[in-house]
């Protein structure tokens, strides 16, 4: 980046301190009147005079450089190294519901591997009439479906069990993405091999060195699980499992095995490392829940939030966020500006769809005062997103996973936001 570009781009830190307002001119109490003519309008700008880049400059593009702070971030102290680790989607800076692959969170257990279509094999074995091997080209010949689903890591918001910890929605809620997948129903492939009556589970496994594998009941495997090879219209990115990953709608992200290489039909669960020592939820009395696959209804306000403070004065304010449920579709989202005393139904940008993100808006007239912002999702099963206190009452503070509590942002008079807990 050139020096002039650097100067033109306020840093996130400036935003947080509110110092950007002066430099960017139009940011403060905007509307009323201009003191002098805006040179951006009255003077011929370079981009209105000279030419831009030709069509051969960017065969495959990245976002414009002004957006280069909208990136995945990781939390260094969270894991021993970055290969078996996680990063976070910058949901504070996105809108709509579809997550671009390039900034969608990654979770690897042995790093993102490079596996070509030519080297790809998928095996179906175990309790089937004919164990089969498919090439990538074989998979492309089965009837295909397109479906939009969210993928949420079971540990999303997991660092917040014991208290407000990370100051940014990217870090508290960014282990989620939502893509349109194209692929073949797992059911189709299982039927091709012929599932035997004693087959009650499938064990799905990836090709990477972690051999990440999970056991899935056959009912789910035959229901809506997808063997996907495209996301948002293009090939899966390497970090999302190129060339083939599993999509397990509504269930925790760890089961969405990437670089899928094998599906074994079995009569019981493997009880692999990822479904016993991890992804199990320890309660206050020391017993642990297992097979907690479904991601419960959840919502969060993405803006304003600590990384996306209010940079204008009182008046019209768009409060927006995301809601989702692994048990069906979002039927409504309520927003509170007073820490949960009173609630107002938000406007859903589109009706909720099955196991996918829903965007909500509350078009608010901000009086410039403090707010305690919260969102609360409701889903088609009748479930209402609980408070953190309600969750702790049942589960204690050691569950790590499945924290779907109501999140609170404290907005001060300057429009800055902070992650807090409230009574």
């Amino acid at each position, binding site marked *: 980046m050139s020096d002039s570009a650097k100067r033109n781009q306020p840093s996130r830190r400036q935003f947080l301190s509110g110092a950007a307002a002066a430099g960017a001119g139009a940011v403060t109490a905007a509307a009323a009147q201009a003191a002098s003519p805006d040179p951006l309008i009255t003077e011929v700008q370079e981009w209105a005079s000279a030419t831009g880049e030709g069509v051969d400059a960017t065969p495959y593009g990245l976002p414009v450089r002004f957006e280069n702070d909208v990136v995945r971030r990781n939390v260094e102290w969270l894991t021993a190294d970055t290969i078996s680790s996680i990063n976070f989607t910058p949901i504070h800076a996105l809108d709509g519901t579809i997550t671009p692959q390039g900034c969608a969170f990654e979770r690897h257990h042995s790093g993102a591997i490079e596996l070509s279509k030519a080297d790809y094999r998928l*095996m179906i074995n175990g309790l089937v009439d004919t164990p089969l091997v498919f090439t990538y080209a074989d998979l492309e010949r089965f009837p295909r479906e397109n479906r939009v689903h969210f993928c949420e890591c079971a540990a999303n918001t997991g660092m917040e069990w014991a208290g407000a910890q990370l100051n940014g929605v990217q870090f508290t809620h960014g282990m989620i993405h939502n893509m349109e997948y194209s692929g073949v129903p797992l059911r189709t492939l299982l039927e091709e091999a012929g599932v035997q009556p004693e087959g009650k589970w499938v064990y799905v496994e990836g090709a990477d060195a972690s051999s990440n594998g999970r056991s899935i009941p056959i009912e789910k495997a035959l229901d809506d699980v997808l063997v996907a090879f495209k996301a948002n219209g293009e090939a899966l990115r390497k970090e999302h499992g190129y060339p083939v990953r599993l999509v397990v709608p509504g269930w925790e992200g760890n089961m969405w095995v990437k670089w899928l290489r094998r599906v074994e039909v079995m009569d019981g669960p493997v009880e692999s*490392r990822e479904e016993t020592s991890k992804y199990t939820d320890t309660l206050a009395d020391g017993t642990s829940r297992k097979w907690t696959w479904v991601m419960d209804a959840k919502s969060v306000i993405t803006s304003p939030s600590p990384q996306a403070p209010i940079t204008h004065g009182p008046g019209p304010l768009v409060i927006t966020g995301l809601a989702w449920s692994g048990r069906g579709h979002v039927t409504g989202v309520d927003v509170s500006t007073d*820490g949960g005393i009173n609630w107002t139904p938000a406007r859903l940008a589109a009706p909720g769809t099955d196991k996918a993100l829903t965007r909500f808006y509350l078009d608010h007239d901000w009086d410039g005062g403090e707010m305690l912002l919260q969102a609360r999702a409701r889903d088609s099963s009748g479930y209402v997103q609980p408070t953190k206190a309600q969750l702790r009452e049942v589960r204690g503070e050691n569950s790590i996973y499945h924290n779907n509590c109501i999140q609170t942002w404290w907005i001060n008079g300057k429009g800055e936001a902070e992650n807090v807990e409230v009574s």
Partner: protein
Amino acid sequence: MSKCLKLLAGTALAATLSAAPVLAQKFGLGRPALPEEIAAWDLDVSPDGTGLPAGSGSVEDGEMVFADNCAICHGDFAEGVDNWPELAGGEGTLADKDPVKTVGSYWPYLSTTWDYVNRSMPFGNAQSLSADETYAIVAYILYSNDLVEDDFVLSDKNFLDVEMPNADGFIIEGRDTAEAHFWTQAPCMEGCKESVEITMRAAVLDVTPEDETAAAPVADASAQQAAAEAPAEQPAEAPVETAALDPALVDKGEKVFKKCKACHQVGDGAKNRTGPTLNGIVGAPAGLVDGFKYSKVLKAAADGGLVWTEDELAAFLAKPKAYMKGTRMSFAGLKKDAEIDAVIAYLQSYGS
């Protein structure tokens, strides 16, 4: 299984789907998997021991295999190094504020340990252990948890006799009953509580990463400081020698380096991980990377004047443990000379 079916019905899944033989259309795609192929990939081991190969390993052997392959991350006594998982201890802590979850205190099935070690470990060199080595490692982990005596030998014959302390510590799901009150048809909309107090603030804890991607303005003091420090962190500027490197060889070396990446970083912003950073390592005196805790033998060799010339590096990389007995580098070695030459060329491209 019946509990599971109930659960699925309760979570509004299509519970009417059955596992009955399917009368579906077949497409005739794919080909039958060969027995050798299934044997190569179908390695998972179930709680009842299904999938375990014949073999055995003692605690005594396990201690050595563990020291060679596992201790660098998990510690000599399976106690865990830095943020790496601890595998021993923690018994009776599961109801504490910070439970210590280890193979001994938490894992319900021994099969899980064997299966995971066999298929996924050691980190960066998975699927390199023999069945007997895996039995030995698992025996040593059991010993580290005081679950067996020091003369214990684990085998496929006595595998199911081992009792895991937390075997009964798990319940299946339970949200639909224990949390039934979260299904509320009419949530409160007005006057839901009398008052609201802030009880905890994330800013007080201050553990959120700083944003490093947004370019910092000159006025920003902390950014200035970072800029001042930056040159020290940069690898040496592309040296003259780089020009002489064969780009094809460097490319090949980059691919070979994938085997090293689990532990070593090189290039801009490289940090010490399990292994030290490798910027400028070719031709450098051994043991000088700042902040890295070297093994005793490496320190001794460094004190003795070891320099990582191309020849020394080549010998080390061919068989690390033979070259330097006691090294912490748990890597079997690069078998082909061509790979060694390539990876050295790749490292040279980051200074020498």
